[in-house]
């Protein structure tokens, strides 16, 4: 472990100023991923700015939707009555990940910022373009069971493992960001993370020093609540990242799918919005056949790398099952 400095502040401007002063400075919130990476010699920050006391620890109604503070714990978000009632897949998604202890520490902003669990990234023993640009990708021809089947590049096939973000993508969440110059901006969840291309070391569109303050859930996607599901398929029954996960919400009118939001987790370097499926489903009468057609359309562009090729077929089946479950939800 490399030595680093640590400061704690309850003032956002102070935190941002401290981070902008060094290229290697990072914000520390729950630390459930960052501390592991520091201890395992994956990342070498020179300054940790602890922001847990910043004033983003509330969940409040907002413009017909819900505003989640970036520093609310994953547990408190999952257990929040309004989240459970209006956005149940967000609650399900969070509770399907990690453990109670980790969810108690982990924050909503931190969940967005978590990094891939690609074993080659997580160990300095191996070449990895994401950890050490230019060193090569060990996963392409290596152990890639948990890796991406969408959005990969020659340089990186790592997957983004968040359950929560898959649900946020299905729910059209907006990420609110405060900038060091005092201004603010808003990023749709599907544009927050980026594809690796030839710069796989850059996970997302946040600029250095920018701070996530809130995650906004729009009022419109409350309509999914009665017919929505988060389905996670994994190698053991708890405490495992997804192989494939699907977050889906349907709005039905006169036995037609009027609106659908669907996103997949752990299949891409970002939460993967299933736009092809959404297009096929919208306006149609739900049927198992339609669900399979939608699933096939979404998976058509998937590409496997040996160890993860089964995820293409598994993805199809998981989408069809999730749609079936959402439709038949009592």
């Amino acid at each position, binding site marked *: 472990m490399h030595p680093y400095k640590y400061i704690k502040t309850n003032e956002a401007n102070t935190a941002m100023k401290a981070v902008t002063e060094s290229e290697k400075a990072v914000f520390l919130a729950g630390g459930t991923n960052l501390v592991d990476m520091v201890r395992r010699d994956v990342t070498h920050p020179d300054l940790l700015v602890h922001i847990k006391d910043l004033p983003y620890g509330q969940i409040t109604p907002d413009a017909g939707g819900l505003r989640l503070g970036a520093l609310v714990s994953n547990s408190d978000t999952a257990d929040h009555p309004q989240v459970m009632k209006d956005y149940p897949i967000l609650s399900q998604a969070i509770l399907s990940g990690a453990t109670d202890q980790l969810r108690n520490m982990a924050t909503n902003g931190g969940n967005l910022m978590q990094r891939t669990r690609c074993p080659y990234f997580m160990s300095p023993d*191996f070449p990895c373009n994401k950890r050490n640009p230019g060193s090569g990708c060990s996963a392409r021809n290596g152990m890639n069971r948990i890796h991406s089947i969408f959005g990969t590049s020659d340089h990186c096939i790592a997957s983004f493992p968040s359950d929560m973000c898959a649900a946020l993508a299905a729910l059209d969440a907006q990420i609110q960001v405060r900038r060091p110059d005092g201004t603010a901006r808003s990023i749709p969840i599907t544009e927050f993370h980026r594809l690796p291309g030839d710069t796989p070391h850059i996970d997302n569109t946040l600029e250095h020093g920018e701070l996530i303050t809130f995650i906004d859930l729009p009022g419109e996607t409350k309509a999914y609540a009665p017919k929505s599901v988060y389905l996670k398929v994994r190698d053991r029954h708890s*405490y495992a990242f997804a192989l494939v996960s699907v977050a889906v919400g349907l709005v039905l009118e006169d036995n037609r799918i009027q609106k659908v939001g669907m996103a997949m987790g752990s299949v891409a370097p970002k939460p993967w919005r299933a736009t092809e499926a959404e297009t096929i489903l919208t306006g149609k009468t739900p049927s198992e056949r339609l669900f399979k057609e939608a699933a096939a359309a979404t998976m058509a562009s998937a590409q496997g790398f040996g160890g993860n090729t089964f995820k293409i077929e598994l993805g199809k089946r998981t989408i069809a099952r999730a749609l079936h479950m959402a439709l038949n939800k009592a």
Partner: protein
Amino acid sequence: MIGEAKIRVDGPLKVSGGAKYTLEFPLDDSLYAVIVKSSIAKGRITDMDTASVEQMPGVVKVIHPGNALKLKPYPTGGGDALALAPGEPFIPLQDNNVYHVGQHIAIVLAETLEDAQLGASQLKVTYQQEPAALDKEHVLEEFFEPERYNTGEELQHERGDFRQAKNNAEVVVEEEYLVPAENHNPMEPAGTLAIWQGERLTVYDSTQGVDNARNCVAHCFGMKPENVRLLAYYIGGGFGCKGFFWPHTLLAPMAAKIMDRPVRLVLSRKDMYTSMGHRPEVIQKITLASDRNGNITAGEHITYSYTSILGAHYEPCGLTSAKLYAIPNFSMRHRYTQLNYPTPTPMRGPGESNGTFALESALDELAEKLGMDPVALRIRNYAAANPVDGLPYSSNKVRECYRRGAALFGWENRNKLPGKMLKDGQLIGHGMATATYPAYRAGGACRLTLNQDGILTAQTAIQDIGTGTYTVMGQIAADALGIPSSQVNVEIGDSDFPVGPLSGGSMVTASAGSYIQTGAQKLKNDLIDRAVSQQKSPFYGMQKETLSIKEGLLQSRTGVKEPIQNVVQRSGKKEIVVEDSSSVIKGFAFGQEAEYAYQSFGAVFVEVSVDADLGVITIPRIVAVYDLGKIINPKLADSQFYGGIIFGYSMALLEATEFNEKGQIVNHDLAEYHVPVNADINDLTVEVLGEPDYKFSEHGGRGIGEIGAVGVAGAIANAIYNATGKRIRQLPITLDKLM
């Protein structure tokens, strides 16, 4: 008392943090040691930039082949070699050769753990690399066939005429099975503390064998064993990886000697994957041939695996197959090659858990071909005597295990056609397998001391690896002496005590329990002798036969009673000390003649539930019935069975150590190397027949640790076949294999 479901005596200490594990002992002025490991699989170290690491803040020294102490090599063959059990007879830092990724090549010593870790990560090592032997399938073409396993059992065995019997058979199953490499992953990573005081050395070490570890340290440092004291009061699991002696336990004392300061050497989780053995990958070819009625006439089990360049562990998968069923014509071969991997070592049920996955899967395939019930097929081929040497089993109640297990499970409701049982949209499957493990009993000795307060202290150099040894030994001693177990104080985990066996091979309760039991009986006789001959004793002049000890009271048939400590008080001594010992049981050593074959048995029944689309496997329930003699403590026994069964579940569905083409382990942590979590495990039902085996041990008990892990993987694979019609012959059975 024997048979009492007593809670473990160390439980309160463990849950309150009062039980100190190896690395928790405070040391004055100690240095932290972190090991630098080779990054290549084969070659020579040509340079190490130790100077720049030694300049780093907090770093005190780098020990490397150029400045390390020269230690005494292990003897090869014969007398001394048999007395020492290293996991590999290798001493690091003696030269510049590299034999596998993860080999210990230097030690960084610093004032803090973090400084030592940083130093170790920054040490630049230059190698002259050589092509490494890493092809695990090479053994299929080129191999050697060693004569014996480390227990003395023969690894190559032929009886009858396998070929001819196979050719004459009516039904033949011939298949290949693969079980990948696995790592033990005990909760407590190992570590070593070393403190020199003049010529005396104290070592705290997380080991399953304090006596063996002390002997190995003493040998390599050229010391008298009595000048080395090795301590392991509590051990957070081992499963075999702490069984034999591993090189890091030499490095802490070496560093402490060089620096003239105590040293605290910590292995990381990652270090654990390459420093203390693993279960090697095994390819198994099995042939079973029978007549139409299911009488198996011919069997063959060929095990293909590897050992390292440095060690000689031979994963013995076929031993069980050769003896479990009465197959007249049998061929057992064990074939290995040497590869540049870290040294393999026994892991819970070594050979039995992976070997019976193959054997019991093949039996299920045979039952399917015969259209016969799998339980009936096994009963038909019951072996009353060990077919390998013809010795009768001291007791073999496996048929009772099948019948009781089948009844408890509801086996008669099984549909033998695959894919026919459905529940809530899920495919249901029922499968079963035989569990078995040898009963081993080693020699050892104890010292029993009764003081003037009536407290008995039992000392022997065994260790409690988390199984409840402290509790069980106390129960045995209390029972044999006739005092409440609250009056017994068990002291173990210290090599200064009389010699005791390794916690391995499920043998500590039978081994140490036997000599503690006879020792306590000896003490009881001693007390009675004294009571009738002490002039001031109320029992003076009575017939010895008329006296007994119950609940701590010495009593005569005539109704005279007094606490046993009165005998000690009248003796004019502070305490009465008795020593006793026992030797290894006949048959469990090279070339000894035996009267019986000692083996434990069981039957495992599994229900699986499979999502036909997604392949997700759930195991709603497992029922297991065992025949392993008398149970000393049913509560602790159940914990062992549950742990073993979960271990087997893990082998079946989760575990695999993934080596890459360079010989590196990719999934060297508990994030990517999966072991079961609570959500995986549902209903476990365990029953024990409980009939004592006095031919084997004083108390009639055999061992428990390993057998729970045996048979489970086979039973799960068979249940998955029954559910899905898919026969998976390669573990772990992950969901993609069922899609």
